[in-house]
């Protein structure tokens, strides 16, 4: 097959090229940014148990056979929540939504469809979750 590009010569103690300087500066900036971010998060991030805030609203997307709703869960606590089960109630209709993980500080959404004849404002609440 093709003869690929030959390996370039590498001096043992040659001067840095402009590209190497650029890579070094960019790399140093990226590393310091991550380290600083982790330090700040560790010192000032939320602490304590998971604190899940749920909102529900009619979804704009069309759905066959019912009324589509969008459930949004935000975790403002200091611990992630796994296997989050949200119970959605509209009138007499009840549905469950399962979210695998809502990490601390994250927002996750899921869609649920209730019967078209379910009248009234939708209500949602977290019924259970586990700690990872």
């Amino acid at each position, binding site marked *: *097959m*093709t*003869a*690929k*590009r*030959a*390996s*370039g010569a*590498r*001096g*043992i*103690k040659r001067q840095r090229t402009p590209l*190497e300087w650029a*890579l*070094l500066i*960019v*790399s*140093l*900036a*990226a*590393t310091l*940014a*991550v*380290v600083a*971010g*982790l*330090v700040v*998060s*560790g010192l000032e*991030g939320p602490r304590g148990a998971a604190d899940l805030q749920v909102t529900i609203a009619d979804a704009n997307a069309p759905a066959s056979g019912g009324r589509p709703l969008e459930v949004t869960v935000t975790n403002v606590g200091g*611990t*992630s929540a*796994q296997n989050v089960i949200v119970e959605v109630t509209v009138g007499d209709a009840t549905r469950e939504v399962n979210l695998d*993980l809502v*990490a*601390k*500080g*994250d*927002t*996750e*959404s899921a869609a649920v469809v209730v019967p078209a004849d379910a009248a009234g404002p939708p209500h949602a609440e977290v019924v259970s979750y586990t700690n*990872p």
Partner: protein
Amino acid sequence: MRGVAGGAILGVPLLYTQETWLHGRSVSPVVILAGVIVAFAANVVLSYFVGFRPGRTHRPTEDAVVGMGLSVLLSALLLVLLDRVGRGTSLENALGVTALTSVPVSIGFSVGVALAPRGGGEKAEQIQGGGGDLLVAAAGALVFALNIAPTAEPILLAAELDGVRLGFLVLASLVLPYLMVFYAEFGGRERRVASDGATQGPITETLLAYAVAFVVSAAMLAMFGRVDTLNGAAAARVVTLAFPASIGAALGRLLI
């Protein structure tokens, strides 16, 4: 590019691991920071003894910084590509997942020279021509795909990735191996002489190697019952698995 190649080889399997996404978001930032510091120290030592610049080991700290920084950037890029970090991800969690993923990638950077011997593998010269290259590409793809195909990650990722991201994943599956094989300057490429044939040319070889990785991925998924029909979902699963498989195919060609 040698460092990027080494980082991709060691880092991509971890990138396809749910637990990495989970722990990057749930483990304390202080613990992840400790892991980064330990990894950096290991990278300094590895850069002194191995490194990603052959023959240059007198600036191990500088090389470790470059390796760590580029690992962070490469990890962040791949996590965004795979939709593991997005608009709903808090900065703290994005940093956590990126930092955790960058640890093995940075180790790959630091041992870039050693991952594929400069002279190629033993008896490498006996495998010649396009057919031989595609054979070793298939073997490399098989090793990587076989590790990931039985897991839930290809299914999960394929279900969550939209068409645009899948398109970019195909692009990454072509560009990254192309850069690894033709620009990373490692492996026994010096001994690989030009030959006539249908697979002549870097672009043709890259496309054919991806085709091989795609077929191997489809076969692996079919073997484990993850693909049993031809539809969009099946194609998405194969594309998702074909990315690490194409990295494996590139590694196979680098070794020979």
